[in-house]
């Protein structure tokens, strides 16, 4: 993954956080309200983003491997739009995080098709094997998560919790505070993740 991709993602997340702070009362507070963020994303990309939930595909127990889908659709009239679909019955934390990550695909889309994924079989295979030489399509999955993390649980906040959160109980409390899945709190507060993003800390 190129450093350029990460900088670009962090820039967009930061710009969205600035918009959020400007537009919301208590914009510095957490958790950040996700459906206000949806509106802000729609304003920024200026093309329709349709967000739906599957009627028959559910994730009631939180154990689904695949929780959401994102599509970019090029229309015959030369315009385009995005469709985001989420499994129904996800808990709030998963629902917010999956929605935010899929929205970041739309925010990051600059029309460069080398980041696009058309071959689903190959894309799944790559996601499962996580090869060292990842394609740009796989890279874009990862950076969309980086964007979601940075918006919902910014580096500066992570740094504070990194120093204090040590136990599963701590991680659970932090997950409740930011309303994102505990699995991701544990990943984002892990030493490898924090060390990796320390390089970018002057920027975020």
């Amino acid at each position, binding site marked *: 993954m190129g450093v350029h991709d990460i900088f670009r993602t962090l820039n967009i997340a930061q710009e969205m956080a600035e918009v959020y702070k400007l537009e919301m*009362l208590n914009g510095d507070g957490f958790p950040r309200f996700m459906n206000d963020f949806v509106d802000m994303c729609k304003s920024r990309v200026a093309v329709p983003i349709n967000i739906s*939930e599957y009627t028959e595909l559910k994730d009631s127990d939180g154990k689904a491997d695949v*929780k959401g889908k994102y599509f970019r659709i090029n*229309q015959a009239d030369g315009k385009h739009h995005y469709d985001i679909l989420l499994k129904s019955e996800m808990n709030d934390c998963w629902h917010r995080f999956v929605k935010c990550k899929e929205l970041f695909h739309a925010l990051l889309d600059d029309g460069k098709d080398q980041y696009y994924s058309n071959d689903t079989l190959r*894309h799944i295979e790559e*996601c499962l094997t996580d090869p060292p030489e990842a394609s740009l399509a796989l890279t874009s*999955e990862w950076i969309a998560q980086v964007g979601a993390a940075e918006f919902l649980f910014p580096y500066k906040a992570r740094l504070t919790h990194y120093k204090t959160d040590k136990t599963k109980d701590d991680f659970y409390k932090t997950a409740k505070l930011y309303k994102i899945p505990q*699995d991701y709190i544990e990943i984002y507060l892990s030493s490898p993740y924090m060390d990796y993003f320390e390089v970018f800390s002057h920027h975020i």
Partner: protein
Amino acid sequence: METKKMNVEERLKKADEALSKMGVVDKKFFFAARSESLPSKVYEDVADMEEAYLNGKYKPLDLSGDRGTRKPIA
């Protein structure tokens, strides 16, 4: 097992073709970190989701909750 994999591969290829015809140029999915399922389950999950999308088995999400208070417009 091999037949099942062939079957899901066929389903995904067909879905790709149908999605391409409707103008879909980019498809991504949310794959949960720490997934513990067999890879075959992941392929099936994605196939189910693409087919449900193609068959219109979804409804607009209610976006009325999870909202804060906006600053008044100056």
